[in-house]
């Protein structure tokens, strides 16, 4: 099953992520985000971080989830590539995220992502799809 597809936007870049359930679509949106930031193939799963979030609705949860990961990348320089969602109910999310600290000798960064935005942001609980536009 396809995890995500990129959306072209003049100045920025967006994606639609899919899943068998909404939790998986959230995980795949994060995978899509890091595919924009870096070449993921050489990244190993040697570091992990647990992310726990509670928001007022599923849209804010998606915004916060992706921005939290951008923040972690910025301060810890960890490129994440696997996201195991352990708990999810549309307002609450707990995930274990695996990846590796950026190593310029083995990894290639592609594009800096400043933030996820609310513009055209959509969480479709029926189709198990999410859409987000990033500011890059």
């Amino acid at each position, binding site marked *: 099953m396809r995890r995500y597809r990129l959306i*072209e936007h003049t*100045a920025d870049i967006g994606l639609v992520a899919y899943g068998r359930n909404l939790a998986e679509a959230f995980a795949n949106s994060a995978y899509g985000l890091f595919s924009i930031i870096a070449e993921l193939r050489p990244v190993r799963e040697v570091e992990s971080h647990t992310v726990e979030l509670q928001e007022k609705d599923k849209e*804010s949860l998606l915004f916060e989830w992706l921005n939290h990961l951008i923040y972690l990348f910025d301060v810890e320089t960890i490129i994440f590539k696997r996201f195991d969602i352990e708990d999810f109910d549309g307002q609450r999310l707990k995930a274990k995220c695996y990846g590796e600290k950026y190593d310029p000798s083995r990894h290639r960064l592609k*594009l800096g992502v400043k*933030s996820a935005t609310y*513009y055209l942001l959509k969480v479709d609980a029926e189709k198990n799809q999410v859409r987000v536009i990033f500011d890059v």
Partner: protein
Amino acid sequence: MPKWSGPLEKVDDYRWRIPKNYKPGMRVPGLIYADQGMLQQIREEQALEQVANVAFLPGIVGHSLAMPDIHWGYGFAIGGVAAMRMKDGVVSPGGVGFDINCGVRILRTNLTEDEVKPKIKELVNALFTNVPSGVGSKGKIRLRAGEIDEVLVKGSRWAVQQGYGRPADLETTEENGEIPGADPSRVSHRAKERGIPQLGTLGSGNHFLEVAVVDQIFETDTAQVMGINRVGQVMLLIHCGSRGLGHQVADDYVKEMVNAMSEYRIDVPDRQLACSPVESRQGQAYLAAMRCAANYAWANRQCITHWVREAFCRILGKCEEDAGLELIYDVAHNIAKIEEHTVDGHRETLCVHRKGATRAFPVGHPSVPQKYARIGQPVLIPGDMGRVSYVLVGTERAMQETFGSTCHGAGRVQSRAAAKRHLRGSEILKELEARGITVRAESLPGLAEEASEAYKDVTAVVNVTHKAGISRIVSRTRPIGVIKG
């Protein structure tokens, strides 16, 4: 992406109006500065819908404005200006953008192309090494515990006190590089955590350093006042912003304002337009935090300026006095400011949002540095890396029509993915070299994304602002060396 098919009324050759009745809920009409040719391009995407959406925001006065470099953004279009009354208007973090105080500065030199060209490769390499750039780049500045708060309050002055640059730089920076009303207690721990290691870095995307040469002077006397003396003179451009600190401030307050919308019974067509009354707790907290991020960006450009001067003098074998390297001016192009303007014949205090737009104050305005009192505020408009850049000045007409604002750059016309499909970074590198432009880039695909073809022609953009009278063209430069993040 659907084309925009809404109504546009021609005001004159350079002004087009979106009538207020286009969508119920618009409080003011939209006004777009563009020529006929540009409109075709602008209609290809949803930027004009965003101009109309901004007109919904409470307290907006005049028009929801779009500069000729307008393109599709998120929430607000890029190239947008919106002014809200203090007393009943709102402030929106989306109206500033995630890269708070992204901006440009230009340094003049006493050297000519003939003197610099033989060493351009060494110079570009030295600039590339001396100024950290690229995705996730970390700086060489080590702040003491708590020192970040000083940076956030003092901005450029902090940098100059640390030995990065000259006291005179402060006089020729918008807000003197230190906008008052910055309160570090309004900036989250996370934002500071992101900002501390990144101070003094260029970042990635469209940020750059450029070695440029003056190739045409349109207003000799005005140019002289800025120290732009002759064709062939070498200039240095720096374009960057507030890095992760600004991005986090924007995130934090977009989130807070999304939550506060129901409290103030504000309804907007797009969550990214989330806002709060300017005078509210959230509005004041955002402005205090945004000013911190703006000051951080000024400190950032100030530190980079120091390393640029260092590299330039070392490679060219000159001392700073001989090289010149004075800062002509530094402008912010993503910011919200509290300013006085005349609206329908009355003086009003307004919160002016400029997102991808530059302040363009005229002769005699108290915010214009003494040095430029008789020419007006310098406006710096970078083109893309293969083309020219411009220096303009602000005008009285801008004061009357656009809250003292003009365009900020070329404006994208092609998505990053499209640019990469059509062009390879390595080919662009070769083509630029063939045209006498030396380039160093952190990432080759990144280079393709920033190719000339992805942008509007900056000359067409500044011509519209010039002909519409909202700024005047003074001089043009062309690049000979570029460093991309």
